[in-house]
């Protein structure tokens, strides 16, 4: 455990002498670099930081941005090392703690993300980066109202943070409040057009609003930028494939659902959805294979057994396999429908 983390509970109150002096003259460029990193404009940030490294070798802020840059480029060990260096040098900087916390969050190290986000807000309750991270963590800890409040404060202080906009959109998406969700995802995608997740969510929320062209455009933009990395969306092809099936473009839907089963073969929903499409396209044999694959996947929310049984009843009926059709019809009949919320 590095010093920064060890010292968190007894937060230090000193700042490194000479910090300001080492960065004098670089403030504007540092701000630009930070903004570029926030918006995932990695090349731009890299160019700025390269220049600054030469001109302000001792400026610690550069280390923080270099850490974020390494994180953005997927160089995890290098990023970790730089984050440690920075937070060791200034354990009281809320931004350093917040960005380091976000790094841990992306590494699925939720305990450290939780601790660092809390410490960051503690250091500076007006730091939008700290508030955004803490808000996100609280939502993940099922403290949604508190998390949402912090995220809202974060975007009020820094409306240009695409991640905070995205996280607020996700909250509204979960609440099935599509109009509000759309607003946040539109801002997120405008600020960071390389965020495939945000495009996907935007499209998913435009669908129920009836903006089909908008949804189609959002899916397409998401697919254009969907690269491995922090903004990668493994379910974009799945969602677009479903959407295209609803729009009766079965051939294109098939293309995307084929890709979806390649990307996430462990997920029941992708096999199920492709089986449904197979059925619709009268590829009954393939539908049975995909349906059985879905049945074999461990249930992980989303698609329930009843849905699989219903589908396989249809598939085997159409294949003329009376025994299997009967088996799945009986399973369908015996399986109770899902229990929904208490109210309409």
């Amino acid at each position, binding site marked *: 455990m590095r010093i920064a983390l060890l010292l968190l509970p007894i937060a230090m109150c000193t700042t490194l002498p000479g910090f300001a002096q080492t960065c004098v003259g670089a403030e504007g460029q540092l701000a630009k670099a930070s903004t570029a990193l926030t918006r995932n404009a990695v090349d731009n940030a890299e160019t700025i930081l390269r220049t600054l490294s030469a001109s302000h070798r001792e400026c610690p802020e550069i280390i923080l941005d270099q850490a974020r840059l390494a994180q953005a480029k997927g160089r995890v060990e290098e990023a970790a090392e730089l984050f440690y260096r920075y937070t060791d040098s200034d354990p009281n900087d809320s931004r350093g703690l917040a960005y380091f916390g976000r790094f841990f969050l992306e590494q699925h190290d939720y305990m450290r993300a939780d601790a660092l986000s809390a410490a960051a807000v503690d250091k500076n309750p007006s730091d939008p980066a700290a508030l955004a991270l803490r808000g996100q963590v609280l939502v993940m800890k099922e403290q949604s109202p508190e998390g949402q409040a912090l995220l809202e404060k974060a975007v009020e202080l820094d409306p240009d943070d695409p991640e905070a906009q995205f996280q607020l959109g996700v909250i509204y998406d979960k609440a099935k409040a599509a109009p509000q969700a759309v607003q946040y995802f539109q801002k997120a995608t405008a600020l960071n057009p390389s965020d495939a997740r945000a495009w996907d969510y935007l499209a998913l929320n435009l669908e129920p609003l009836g903006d089909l062209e908008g949804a189609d455009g959002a899916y397409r933009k998401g697919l254009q930028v969907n690269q491995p990395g922090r903004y990668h969306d493994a379910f974009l092809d799945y969602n677009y494939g479903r959407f295209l099936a609803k729009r009766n473009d079965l051939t294109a839907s098939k293309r995307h659902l084929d890709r979806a089963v390649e990307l996430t073969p462990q997920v029941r929903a992708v096999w199920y959805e492709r089986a449904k499409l197979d059925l619709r396209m009268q590829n009954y044999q393939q539908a049975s294979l995909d349906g059985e694959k879905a049945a074999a996947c461990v249930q992980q929310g989303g698609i329930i057994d009843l849905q699989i049984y*219903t589908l396989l009843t249809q598939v085997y009926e159409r294949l003329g396999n009376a025994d299997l059709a009967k088996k799945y*019809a009986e399973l369908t009949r015996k399986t109770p429908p899902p229990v929904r919320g208490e109210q309409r």
Partner: protein
Amino acid sequence: MPRIQFENRQQESGITFVLDNGTLPDKPMLDGIPGGVAVLDYDNDGYLDIFFANGASLPGLIKAGNKFANRLYHNNHDGTFTDVTDRAGLRGEGYSIGAAAADYDNDGFVDLYVSGFDRNILYHNNGNGTFTDVTTKAGVTGISSAGKKLWGISAAWLDYDNDGKLDLFVTNYLDWSFATSRVCGPPGQRVSCSPTLYKGQPNLLYHNNGDGTFTDVSETMGISGHIGKGMGVAIADYNDDGWMDIFVANDNERNFLFKNHGGRGFDEIGIESFVAYTDNGVPVSSMGVDFRDWNNDGRPSLVVTALGGETYPLFRNEGNGFFSYESYRAGIGFRSFKMSGWGAGIQDFDNDGYKDLFTANSHVSENANLDKQQHYRQANAVFRNMHDGTFQDVSGNAGDAMQLLAAHRGCAFGDLNNDGKVDIVVSAIGSPAELLYNTSSGGSRWILIKTVGVKSNRDGIGTRIKLTTASGLVQYNHVTAAGSYASSNDPRVHFGFGTDTVIKEIELKWPSGTVQVLHNVKADQILTVTEE
């Protein structure tokens, strides 16, 4: 292309009926459910009269005062109606929900069955403008064999065994009472609870003994063994075997399709025929239903209404025993996603020879608006048949009447002014019922066929009709008053057929097995066909 247009003429009609659900602050399950309508010619003057089922005060279930009375309005043939409820003796008792009209005793006068939460009532038409409650004598009380009054919603008259006498099917909803009632939502903002909190109930089938009495055959005919949460019911001979089948729309349970085995019993084959669930394999809040051939392939298909976020299921009859879910393929999926619907009909509103869709819309919960995605009061919707298996939502251009936001519930379809266009009467909680006169343009041709059975039941219910025009357009429909939600439609069978002035052939397949063919029939008339 003709435009579908409706005009609400309620204000000048003299119909002042307002559906009163007797709502309470806790929003019990009962108060979202009422609202059946029947269009029936009770005095045989050739014009459809209108009956509205109404609620009652809660929790007492009393029709206290005029505001909860059921209502019968006589059609004066000039666009106005006269309230004849008291003379007819149809004020009703208890919390009424649905209505089904037919001549069950073949005496030439249409009778009326009113289903409800605590009382189901069979009214015999005395032929002189009055009705008599014959429920107990007839044995159609809606009480199960276990002695429990079931919560009746919709009813359908059909001759399931083709013996020339109309039988009665009643859908039942939830095992709910005020004693077991739950509350949902915070105080002051209560919403309707989900039906999943309560057990469902069996449906009932009564066999007509032909002597004014009925026998409960629900168990022996394979009906009551299937417990659902029955809402709408529609009948059609989906497999063209000459025996009427029954579809029941269940709320948050799988839908039922009761396949008729030669009048000797029913098999519930919703799962095997793929109408139990949508293509997503889970139940929706199925409410209303209609069961007719919308694509002129001779096979009755289904439209079902549901709640917002579910889309309205459209099941196309493939003719091989299977149905395919076609909501998105047919173009109503995305459009109906935000709608919540009750009454539903497959009718040719623009007389172009292709049946369109209508849904009476509203969310179930009065406080639905607390969820920003839901709306309690909604406009009705009409989807025009585009002749290629798809529909287009033309509600926005169908007139001011189609923009009216209300808590719509049941609706009945029929030609109120005998102008050859299908009109609609819609009931709405807390606001005046709507009389949607069809004013669609185009001057297309039409025919209304009134069947009079001789060997078959007198109404001719179950008669399958094939119509071929001179230009070769072939259409199919069948005689039934059932369909929509808790409502009863004009039993006269309507066809529109564009510009043809002569119908080349009309083929009627009566329930008795008689096949009757008419040739070169003039368009634009109400044709009475008596079974040969």
